[in-house]
């Protein structure tokens, strides 16, 4: 399968407080990849590095197989972007955005843009400042897809939206990748969104990449083993990724729930959600 993004050993240091490092990512065509991690983990820094909003210290970024440093303009013609903060001038309306964007992107399709506006009930003559947050976010997403990009890079596109708008937005994303030629990289801390749409998950913590795995691999293999306090000493340390002690029991994150259920047949193993995984890895105790 052709890769749409290849990142090798990306590093970015912000004074002494934060460092994004050892980031290696490969994203194939036709997938939705979710970037997860707590606030301040480095998700936005990674996205900003990929878009040259901030300058990386070292590493290599290839998008669509092209070297970012040499072919930045070409690459950006085929990327649609939504950043975490609202970014369109609030005095403008959707028509103004079309007027401006049609002279920015070679492939901008005004007809498509206005058809999306209609589809998502967005007014074309109302200034952005009088639109709701959900409407503005939808407009940003519609703008990001109206030049028919091959890749969408989205930073927290669903944050702060109500469940109805969120569902609409997720539907847009699913439609976008339908033809298997397009890909999406989106960061979010609303992990339940990813359980519905993501094919792969990249987990970042404290500026380091913990893993990149398929969603199915995580949901099918990982689990939370629950045992009482006395039984905990019987658990093989090698099987414990992280654990949390509650009042009467231990909750242990395991990476192979079938094997664990055979090995510790007196214990209950619960299915895992991405949120459980995130919380246990970040906040849970480690054995070694």
């Amino acid at each position, binding site marked *: 399968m052709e890769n749409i993004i290849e990142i090798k050993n990306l590093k970015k240091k912000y004074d002494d407080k934060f460092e994004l490092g050892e980031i290696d990512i490969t994203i194939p065509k036709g997938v939705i990849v979710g970037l997860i991690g707590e606030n301040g983990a480095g998700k936005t820094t990674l996205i900003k590095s990929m878009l040259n909003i901030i300058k990386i210290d070292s590493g290599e970024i290839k998008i669509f197989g092209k070297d970012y440093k040499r072919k930045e303009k070409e690459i950006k013609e085929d990327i649609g972007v939504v950043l975490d903060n*609202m970014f*369109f001038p609030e*005095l*403008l309306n959707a028509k103004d955005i079309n*007027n401006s964007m049609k*002279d*920015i992107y070679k492939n901008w399709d005004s007809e498509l843009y206005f058809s999306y506006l209609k589809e998502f009930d967005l007014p074309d003559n109302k200034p952005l400042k009088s639109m709701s947050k959900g409407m503005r976010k939808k407009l940003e997403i519609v703008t990001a897809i109206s030049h028919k990009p091959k890749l969408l890079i989205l930073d927290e596109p669903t944050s702060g939206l109500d469940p109805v708008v969120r569902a609409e937005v997720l539907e847009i994303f699913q439609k976008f990748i339908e033809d298997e030629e397009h890909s999406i990289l989106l960061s979010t801390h609303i992990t339940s969104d990813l359980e519905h749409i993501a094919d792969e998950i990249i987990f970042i913590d404290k500026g380091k990449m913990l893993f990149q795995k398929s969603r199915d691999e995580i949901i099918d293999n990982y689990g939370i083993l629950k045992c009482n306090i006395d039984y905990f000493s019987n658990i093989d340390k090698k099987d414990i990724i992280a654990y949390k002690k509650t009042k009467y029991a231990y909750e242990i994150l395991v990476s192979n729930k079938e094997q664990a259920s055979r090995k510790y047949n007196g214990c209950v193993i619960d299915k895992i959600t991405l949120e459980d995984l995130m919380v246990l890895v970040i906040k849970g105790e480690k054995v070694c």
Partner: protein
Amino acid sequence: MLGLIKKDFLIIKANSKQMLIIFAIYLILIFQGTMDITFVVPLIGIMLFISTFSYDDFNNWNPYAVTLPDGRKNVVKAKYISSVILTVILSIVALAFGVGVAYIKSNSINIEEILSSLMGTVLSSVIIISLLYPIVFKFGATNGRIILFVVVFGAAGIGALVAQFIDMTPIINMINGLDSCSLIAIPIISIILLGISYLISNKIYQNKEF
């Protein structure tokens, strides 16, 4: 880049109501003779230019603008080009008003005097743009304005201090000399100043992180 120029003009258009009110106040002052029409050009022009920078900062436009194709290069180019276009438009408006006001007041028009005064104000617009833009690109619209005031008043203060000890006559003569050949000299000086300023702004913006 055309798209970015359009974006700035669309912001100015959306803001035009406030600007028309300000312009109306100026018009009264002009008819009263308190203010010269040609002086209004840089004033309104700079207010409009700065407002686009302020909206860019306020609306987090810059991080998005650099994700657009050739965004980093075009943002700077677009700002300078739209400023030049706006200065030219405002100069034409000022010239027309200048001629009109002169005709209403005295029934006679001294085109040469109006042109020469207009050239002077265009040059002051260019000087302010050339000084201000690199500072605004570096420090943002709000901080940039403060720094510009400090720089301008600081320079004026130092100039006044230096003038106490050194004879400034040759410099004053040189500036006065500009007046006589202003139609040729001012556009050339403007292009040089804007060119240098653009190169500095471009250098700043290429390396800026958002």
